[in-house]
């Protein structure tokens, strides 16, 4: 049975077994966030969980990798219209700290 999801309110179908990112691409949606600095559109790039280009908010949880998360019935995708990295400071901070991104790990 086909799953029914929504992307910013619009219906997006998915076959059981597909990822969120695959379902979006199949629906003709190629990008779902914008970059922090230049505001450029981003969607799938590596498609296998390496590049983090495809980050998306799913059911209110930010920064999920669309290429990895299995599609499920009723999922709400990409709720925040802006780049949620810039908006949701708490989520960003928690991840950045855990990656050691701001610490200059090679020092």
């Amino acid at each position: 049975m086909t799953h029914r999801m929504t992307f910013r309110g619009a219906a997006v179908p998915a076959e059981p077994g597909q990822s969120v990112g695959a379902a979006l691409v199949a629906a003709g949606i190629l990008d779902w966030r914008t970059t922090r600095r230049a505001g450029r559109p981003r969607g799938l790039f590596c498609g296998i969980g390496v590049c983090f280009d495809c980050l998306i908010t799913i059911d209110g949880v930010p920064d999920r990798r669309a290429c990895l998360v299995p599609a499920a019935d009723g999922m709400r995708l990409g709720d925040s219209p802006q780049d949620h990295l810039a908006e949701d400071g708490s989520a960003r901070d928690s991840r950045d700290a855990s990656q050691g991104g701001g610490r200059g790990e090679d020092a």
Partner: protein
Amino acid sequence: MARTHDVAVVGAGPAGLAAAVEAAEAGLDVALVDGAAQPGGQYWRHYDERHARPDDRDGHHGWPVFTGLRERLRAERSAGRVRYLPGRQVYLVTRDEAGAFTLRTTASLGEPEADAAGEVTARTLILCTGGYDRQLPVPGWDLPGVMTAGGVQALLKGHRVLAGRRAVVAGTGPFLLPVATGLARAGASVEAVAEANGTLGWLRDPVGAASVPGKAVEAAQYAALMARHRIPYRTRTVVTRILGQDRVEAVRISRVDRDGRPAGPVKEIAADLVALGWGFTPSLELALMLGADTRKDVDGSLVVAVDGFQRSSVEGVYVAGEATGVGGAVLATQEGRLSALALARSLGRPAVPGRMGRLRAAIGRGRRFAAAMHRTYAVPSAWTEWLEERTLVCRCEEVSYGDLRRAHDDLGAHDPRTLKMLARPGMGWCQGRVCGFATAGIAACLNRRETTAEDLRPLSTRSLAAPVTLGELAALDRSRDAQDDQ
């Protein structure tokens, strides 16, 4: 307290699957940790088995090898000799005073979670962490509709989704062929395969052809498929620019000379999908975390140095597959088997005479073939000449080639480590996985020298191998405190 396994195998692709089943069949207690929901790795990636269709195996090479390994894995699991942890990504590996390794894992597919359920302890490790497409930046490569060649393949094989209708496949190497023919078979129009290097030279390469004869047959099959789908195969051709406003609309391709310098007429091709691949980058996070020695391979990538039994420089840590040098699935499977047999012998299990010798000979042939391929499909030495000031190098932190040049020219960032500190390439979400190879190459090029292993290492090292929540890190502290209290 969780049980301490004889060995933890990381990765369930060709190398890891082979290593896990061989180790279990040799009588070892095995843990197998893998990021995906089902075994196969990138090479045997296939649709969710719970919703399988017969044609899911189409276009797969060595599928019976995979199903054989999968069957043996099932048998070992039901016999209790393999504990299989799918959907878990190892983000940290540590070693205690007694020499036991602890792998800390996080959910890679479901919701992030902070629990200790995914913790694995083992006396030894076999790291089979594989790799992913190597990328070179080019103007416009950040437009939606540009994907890695492997990503396009993953969408098709793993999700039955065609990423575009009019495709250009570009970069270098034999992997471009299955991607192009896979797209065509699924109904896309493949406008061109742009191969930066000369010809299908490895067919004529005496070393390559003699080493692994089956490869010549494979190449001939792809040549026939390319012809059947009328896919233009343009050699010594690169994509110099990808055009479009908010998504790909066209690509500009150019003939290049032996070093990759544009040398011929420029042609524009309308496209809505560009698949890029320049060979593969091995995943080395865990090996580097443990301090394993690395070296620069023939293809220019950083790889783990191993001996003739797949042993790394770290006691008890074996490495097999692409992490020891990109060489394909057949070689990876052989290395996985050898690592398990060598480990079993070192733990006092009886060895079948001759088996390891035959495997080692096959691996030697496979390595020679891989080296011939790497020389045929090298990254063109003049590739940085395609870059423009505004071309993004680091997609995460949005660092352009101009930013890197200024950090070099004005701030004195003469090595990749300093470049990373001052201009922030490789400091974002992906931690340099995508831009690391290119950044090291740019740093070397700005200093008019060849890339070295020392250039590549700081861009391959990560403090954690996967992003985790603060909750997970806090849980680590708690378990450490508990240990201290004892």
